[in-house]
């Protein structure tokens, strides 16, 4: 079988109405509405025990001793395991050769490197007792504190304490770069400036925390895990425990969100499987929010030291950027190292910048490991790029819209290769921006009029033009997996269809979308389609749901499997119709000879022949009506070429965001008055679901732009957060109503022209809010250089900008 896969619906299908592009209502809604959805915390097994993990209260320390006896003496406690007990479990694998090996154990053995690091597990009759016992273990653990590093400056200081004794420094990734053409551009430009931009630490925080339920029967393990990648969880558990992979079934039950944070393979996935095997009975661990804040991967913690070369007329000739990511302790699989490369690769967003040089660094500190979160480095980069553009506009007296018009990608530049090797096959970059400018222009005037009589309030507008890499390679993230995914479609004797998918669902409406795709591909109705995913025994191997990849990989793999089914079904139908196969077409679920409506053969008749009345099959035909498509996205590359370039995403959606803010000068209070999104993800499968993805993405982008911040004590590297009281998760009052419009520029490369969506909404707000605040406070000379843009940050910026000129 070649890798050539169909990119469009089989032409023998004649649809009366297409199921693609329709806002088909979600089939996922009824159970949660009625309180009947089954999330991980709703699953119980007879004889089940509950587990609590014991976590380090120290940011950096040696574990001197652990006395588990007091905990074991507590009524209801069955066992306490420490890292030493799990000696037969491998360290987490090291597969990315260009980074320092971390090789953390599933439970810390002799050293802890962040507050929250798990170092023991308690098994008890219920969670209350397990937590009592965990507290006792912690109380009887002796730590020897080590010097801490709480931020990049501390980690990179001369003679800084090192997290890993055998490393020369605290660099997990150290990739300087030098491009002669950039050096030359700096020499030739009229002006240069240098600046530093900062994205703060925040993360996805799905409303459902994580959890694992593991059971074993006769050497066959079943592991329910709240994960975005059940197959990868299975492969990793097998590799680390030595349990043969077919003897592990991983099930991702209904999930309460993930946003990237549940793509990682966490220690609990492995430890819980091991405990189930050790005790021979089911065990469950449910993460609480405190644990989730401390140990679910963090993200976005990046600093960008930029040099910019520009001319008097506002032309930006070159950007040099040192992108430095604080990845916390680095003790997570897969490592949090890929994000900063995505930041670098996508830094120019939807703009054509002649020269760029990005240096990539990941630095370890005594904080929670960082990893995947919706946007995956792109929001950080877009913030930098738009800040640069706004600053050049200001320095040269160029209109911020005009300067963007000059730089934005044009249709006749497609396909366009970015500096990092990303190849944008198509898009509506310029058109989307013009539409966003038009939309926001109207509300800008209204908002200005509203505050015209209030001298304390200023109004401003901000813009961003981003690209959204979708369906990325997993090889640069994991050093192991690549980018393909699969679908198995079976037509049952009653003519209905079961689709098994390697991707999974975490609340995005994937089942509904997949049913639309399968119906379209087989000439059926979505109601005829049942979708199965998130279960390694019932669905084919796949990499799961992340990187806005499901739309492309489902489209590709479903089309492949459907095409194979149709080829076989047509042969069967032709035999039953006593016609030539090439004359047979498929209309509204029935096979018939082209040009004649009767007689017809239904999918049910074909499937009954294939499975049941196999005597009706053409002589010599193999029975059965089930096919699998293993899809590798075209254009996707997994390794850089000699110059370091790689098209690490199969497709590139695009969008323009614009927002109007009001700023109250006396208090720094900031309000988003209007927000518009012009979005282009190619062919839309279900516009309602896509709008939902944009809304939710923008809300999370606003969370990062204005509210959420994981702060740490700089002396001790201890977290200054323990709950949602300190971590400002936006409510309905903080997220403004927004207007979303779409262009549909189909990908010429990807199946059905689909590009994928999910992360775009998250990319824009930090850049937009910062730009709008700068615009509002332009006459004060305020320049926002860091997120979150809080009232106190605005007051500080006003004080700095007006220092010497008398504070307002």
């Amino acid at each position, binding site marked *: 079988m070649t890798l050539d896969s169909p990119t469009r619906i089989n032409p023998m299908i004649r649809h009366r109405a297409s199921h693609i592009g329709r806002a088909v209502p979600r089939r996922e809604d009824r159970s*949660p509405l009625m*309180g009947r959805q089954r999330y991980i915390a709703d699953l119980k097994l007879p004889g089940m025990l509950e587990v609590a993990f014991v976590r380090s209260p120290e940011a950096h320390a040696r574990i001197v001793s652990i006395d588990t006896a007091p905990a074991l003496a*507590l009524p209801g406690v069955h066992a306490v395991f420490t890292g030493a007990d799990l000696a037969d479990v491998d360290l987490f694998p090291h597969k990315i050769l260009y980074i320092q090996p971390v090789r953390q154990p599933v439970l810390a053995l002799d050293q802890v490197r962040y507050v929250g690091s798990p170092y023991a597990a308690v098994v008890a009759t219920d969670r209350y007792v397990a937590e009592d016992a965990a507290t006792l273990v912690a109380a009887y653990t002796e730590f020897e504190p080590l010097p801490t590093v709480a931020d990049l400056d501390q980690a990179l200081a001369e003679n800084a304490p090192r997290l890993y004794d055998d490393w020369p420094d605290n660099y997990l990734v150290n990739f300087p770069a030098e491009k002669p053409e950039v050096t030359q551009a700096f020499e030739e430009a009229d002006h240069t400036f240098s600046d530093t931009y900062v994205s703060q630490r925040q993360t996805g925080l799905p409303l459902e925390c994580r959890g694992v339920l593991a059971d074993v029967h006769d050497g066959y393990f079943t592991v329910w895990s709240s994960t975005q990648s059940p197959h990868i969880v299975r492969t990793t558990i097998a590799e680390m425990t030595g349990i043969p992979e077919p003897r592990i079934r991983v099930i991702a039950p209904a999930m309460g969100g993930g946003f990237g944070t549940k793509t990682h393979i966490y220690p609990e996935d492995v430890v819980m499987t091991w405990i189930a095997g050790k005790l021979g009975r089911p065990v469950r661990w449910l993460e609480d929010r405190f644990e989730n804040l401390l140990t679910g991967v963090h993200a976005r913690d990046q600093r960008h030291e930029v040099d910019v070369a520009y001319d008097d007329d506002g032309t930006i000739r070159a950007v040099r950027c040192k992108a430095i990511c604080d990845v916390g302790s680095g003790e997570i699989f897969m490592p949090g190292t890929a994000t900063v490369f995505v930041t670098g690769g996508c830094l120019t967003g939807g703009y054509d910048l002649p020269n760029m040089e990005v240096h990539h660094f990941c630095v370890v500190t005594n904080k929670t490991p960082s990893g995947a979160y919706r946007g995956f480095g792109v929001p950080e980069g877009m913030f930098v790029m738009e800040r640069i553009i706004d600053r050049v506009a200001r320095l040269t007296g160029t209109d911020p819209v005009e300067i963007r018009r000059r730089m934005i990608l044009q249709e006749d530049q497609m396909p366009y290769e970015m500096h990092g090797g990303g190849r944008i096959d198509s898009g509506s970059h310029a058109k989307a921006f013009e539409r966003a400018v038009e939309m926001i222009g109207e509300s800008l005037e209204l908002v200005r009029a509203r505050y015209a009589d209030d001298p304390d309030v200023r109004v401003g507008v901000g813009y961003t033009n981003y690209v959204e890499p979708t369906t990325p390679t997993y090889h640069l993230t994991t050093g192991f997996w690549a980018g393909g995914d699969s679908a198995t479609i079976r037509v049952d004797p009653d003519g209905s269809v079961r689709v098994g998918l390697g991707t999974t669902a975490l609340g995005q409406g994937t089942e509904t979308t997949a049913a639309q795709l399968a119906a379209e591909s087989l000439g059926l109705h979505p109601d005829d389609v049942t979708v199965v995913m998130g279960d390694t025994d019932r669905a084919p191997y796949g990499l799961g749901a992340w990187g806005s990849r499901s739309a492309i990989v489902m489209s590709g793999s479903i089309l492949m499997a459907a095409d194979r089914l149709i080829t076989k079904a047509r042969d069967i139908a032709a035999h039953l119709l006593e016609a030539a196969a090439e004359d047979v077409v498929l209309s509204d679920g029935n096979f018939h000879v082209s040009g004649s409506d009767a007689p017809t053969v239904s999918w049910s008749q074909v499937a009954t022949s294939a499975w049941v009345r196999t005597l009706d099959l053409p002589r010599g035909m193999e029975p059965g009506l089930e096919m699998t498509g293993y899809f590798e996205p075209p254009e996707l590359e997994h390794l850089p070429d000699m110059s370091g370039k790689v098209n690490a995403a199969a497709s590139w959606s695009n969008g323009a965001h614009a927002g109007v803010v009001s700023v109250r000068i006396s208090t720094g209070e900031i309000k988003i008055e209007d927000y518009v999104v012009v979005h282009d993800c190619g062919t839309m499968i279900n516009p309602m679901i896509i709008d939902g993805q944009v*809304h939710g993405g923008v809300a999370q982008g606003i969370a990062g732009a204005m509210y959420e911040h994981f702060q740490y004590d700089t002396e001790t590297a201890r977290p200054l957060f323990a709950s949602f009281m300190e971590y400002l998760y936006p409510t*309905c009052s903080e997220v403004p109503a927004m207007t979303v419009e779409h262009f549909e520029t189909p990908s010429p490369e990807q199946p059905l022209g689909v590009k994928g969506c999910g992360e775009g909404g998250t990319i824009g707000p930090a850049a937009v809010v910062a730009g709008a605040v700068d615009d509002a406070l332009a006459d004060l000379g305020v320049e926002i250089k860091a997120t979150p843009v809080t009232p106190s940050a605005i007051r500080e910026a006003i004080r700095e900008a007006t220092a010497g000129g008398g504070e307002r």
Partner: protein
Amino acid sequence: MMDTSPGSREVDVAATINGMQVTHRVPARLLLSDFIRDVVGLTGTHVGCEHGYCGACTVIVDGDAIRSCSTLAVQADGSTIRTVEDLATDGDLTPMQQAFHENHAMQCGFCTAGFLMTLESVDPDDYREPEQVVDLLSGNLCRCTGYQNIVNAVCSVWEVERS
């Protein structure tokens, strides 16, 4: 020797949940959310933060919406409790549930029960302006939807005009 461990003291909790009379002897420290979910077995009420902030665990006790994760089961002794399972009758969704579906006001669905119970606990006549609806909903967190479609769903059922 008397068992003085923290979970040793037990109390009887009798309550009416969704019209059903239940009595259970439970640890005095048991949270109401765990009582409803684990003891009674109604898992439609979700626990999102366990510190009374996110609202996913919202249930109605004697007419008031409360956070079941920061209430002890024993505090609900003698009370009448309603949970999300009590909303639909014989499988027919309420107008609000139907509006959540039609407006795509839910994605992962984890927060949905909390929103529905908050909404169920109030008199719509007290919420005639969109800002009032937004204020009401601000006690419940949602990470997926960006809230816009939730506000739309509520406004459509309560006939509140959005500006």
